């Protein structure tokens, strides 16, 4: 089922609000993507790389101790953290870099927040032999040293962005500005299901492999569909990827969890679906955090990947039409969830993913025993250890403090 109401439009949201210089490139991308989508050979190539290199399908893991601790629905984890490079981001970058090669592009640029998309883009570029430049907010360069190293090790150039809030939004501005200057031979790999048309559609389609696998795996595991699926939402690529194949299934509750930061009242959060207003940011009309004069506000989250004042247009549409339920989790709740998952399931989830886990308990209880709750485990937490350990580690399990 598609929520696209016209090409590139999801209800009121979407569109292509970019400098005229970029419009021909977006039209070219739209056309090339349509041709690639219709070409079985392209689909097979993407599927082969996902299988051979990325490690798909990722497993659907029963979370037995979380299920017991939460006392409600059976909890299952869709393990995108087990995909190569440690997050779902690789699904999209493999697809887009193959598409760029098909279009004859000579180089790749990308923006990154937490660095997962940057690493995934650098990885796909290494695999397919294209030079890669990644724009990253200077603050994120500091917070995500491991991923900065990984990108450099993979041969990419990392360009710290000093403007604005020095985070993801500014990295995206800089990547778009660079793209305007080099549009003839460069493909811009956007990592979120955001940006100008056709990106929200392209990214969603490449990420929808998560939800498609989940359908099959749920059938095999318990012979039905999930009763609810939770995913964290920054720009929203993991969320739309896991949720999209279930939009038409009315019995499946779709839940997005945004960054509550220091709390919704603090004005320091990333809750654009919850508190954003309609606006245009980075090429599409969606819900954005802005002041009454239309200036974009700085988002805050302990997780660099949710620290974004916008959200993909399709998710804005799903939220506004009520198809997706939207909740928030604060920094502290995400941190608590990180340790809960680590100690009950032996998994260190990314801080982004920890937001989804933070709302798991109440949702499991709302659903009740015998129901099936799936949490999209969008990425692993290795990249976040500096941020998390700086706040002190709780005492070991089974040892008196």
């Amino acid at each position: 089922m598609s929520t696209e109401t016209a090409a590139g439009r999801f209800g009121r949201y979407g569109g292509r609000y970019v400098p005229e210089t970029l419009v021909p490139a977006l039209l070219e991308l739209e056309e090339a993507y349509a041709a690639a989508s219709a070409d079985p050979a392209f689909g097979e190539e993407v599927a082969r790389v996902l299988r051979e290199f990325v490690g798909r399908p990722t497993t659907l893991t029963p979370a037995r101790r979380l299920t017991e601790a939460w006392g409600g629905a059976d909890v299952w984890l869709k393990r995108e953290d087990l995909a190569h490079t440690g997050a779902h981001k690789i699904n999209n970058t493999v697809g887009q870099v193959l598409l760029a090669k098909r279009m004859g592009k000579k180089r790749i640029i990308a923006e990154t927040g937490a660095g997962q998309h940057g690493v995934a883009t650098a990885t796909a570029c290494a695999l397919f032999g294209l030079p890669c430049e990644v724009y990253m907010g200077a603050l994120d360069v500091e917070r995500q040293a491991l991923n900065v190293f990984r990108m450099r090790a993979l041969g990419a150039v990392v360009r710290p962005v000093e403007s604005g809030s020095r985070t993801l939004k500014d990295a995206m501005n800089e990547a778009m500005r660079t793209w305007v200057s080099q549009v003839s031979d460069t493909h811009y790999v956007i990592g979120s299901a955001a940006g100008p048309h056709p990106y929200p559609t392209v990214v969603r389609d490449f990420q929808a492999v998560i939800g498609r696998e989940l359908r099959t795996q749920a059938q095999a595991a318990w012979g039905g569909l999930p009763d609810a699926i939770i995913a964290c939402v920054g720009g929203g690529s993991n969320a739309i990827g896991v949720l999209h194949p279930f939009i038409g299934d009315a019995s499946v509750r779709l839940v997005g969890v945004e960054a509550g930061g220091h709390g919704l009242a603090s004005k320091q959060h990333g809750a654009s679906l919850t508190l954003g207003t309609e606006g245009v940011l980075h090429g599409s009309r969606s819900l954005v955090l802005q002041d009454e004069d239309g200036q974009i506000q700085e988002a805050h989250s302990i997780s660099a990947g949710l620290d974004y004042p916008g959200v993909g247009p399709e998710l804005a549409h799903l939220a506004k039409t009520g198809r997706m339920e939207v909740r928030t989790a604060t920094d502290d709740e995400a941190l608590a969830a990180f340790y809960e998952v680590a100690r009950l399931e032996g998994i260190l989830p990314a801080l982004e993913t920890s937001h989804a886990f933070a709302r798991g308990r109440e949702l499991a209880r709302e659903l009740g025993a015998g129901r099936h709750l799936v949490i999209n485990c969008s990425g692993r937490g290795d990249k976040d250890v500096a941020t998390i350990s700086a706040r002190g580690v709780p005492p070991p399990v089974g040892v008196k403090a």
Partner: protein
Amino acid sequence: MSGEIAQAFARAKARGEGVLVAYAMAGDPDLPRSVDVFAALVEGGADILELGVAFSDPIADGPVIQGAAERALKAGSTLKRVLDEVVPAVRQRCPQTPLVIMTYVNVIMAMGEARYAKLARERGVSGTILPDLPPEESAALRATFDAEGMDLIPLCAPTTPPARAQAIAKDGRGFVYCVSVSGVTGMRAELPPDLSQRLDLVRKAASVPIVAGFGISTEEQARTLSAHADGVVVGSALVRAAHTEGPAAAKALCADIKRGLRR
């Protein structure tokens, strides 16, 4: 279309000159002093003033104008305050000069398109340039502006294919803004070799005058381009001059460029 913009082109043509559209950021370094900058640009020979209204995320702008936007935001510049405080003051000091607002679509949306068009027109703004609003997205806004007598000035880019450029030019309002280089705003030592050919194509199809902008900062560039366009836009070079040396320096640069526009 706004009579004021057409008159400015007609006056310049009668004098045997190309039009100088001069850009500065409203609110840089603060609101009152930016009025002095605009007045200086007109004293230097600017025929049309382009008032930048700062946006936090300016994807079409290079570092000079981005820096100006950051200063303007810090000084409290908003679209509302520009319309209330800067536009009337500039009108008073330069009553003959048409004013055009350049900003991003989100800033206009936040005020409300119809409210903006009405208020801006009342204050004496003739046209609006929105670099992130391509033709595909502009129909509704343009109808709103047309009803109010506000020109939505379209842009053509170096990457715009000929047929698309002709369609944009044919249906233009105010003037057609031909972006000279693939890139963001900012000075360039060299302009692309095929620029004059592109300008000729757009000019032939256009129902309104055409100007070239982005990357232009010298008398020589203005001279070369004025053979193929009805005028030029100069932004970053003026913003930098005003910021580092003050309004008099921006005025002097306007006068230099204006010399290049004499035919």
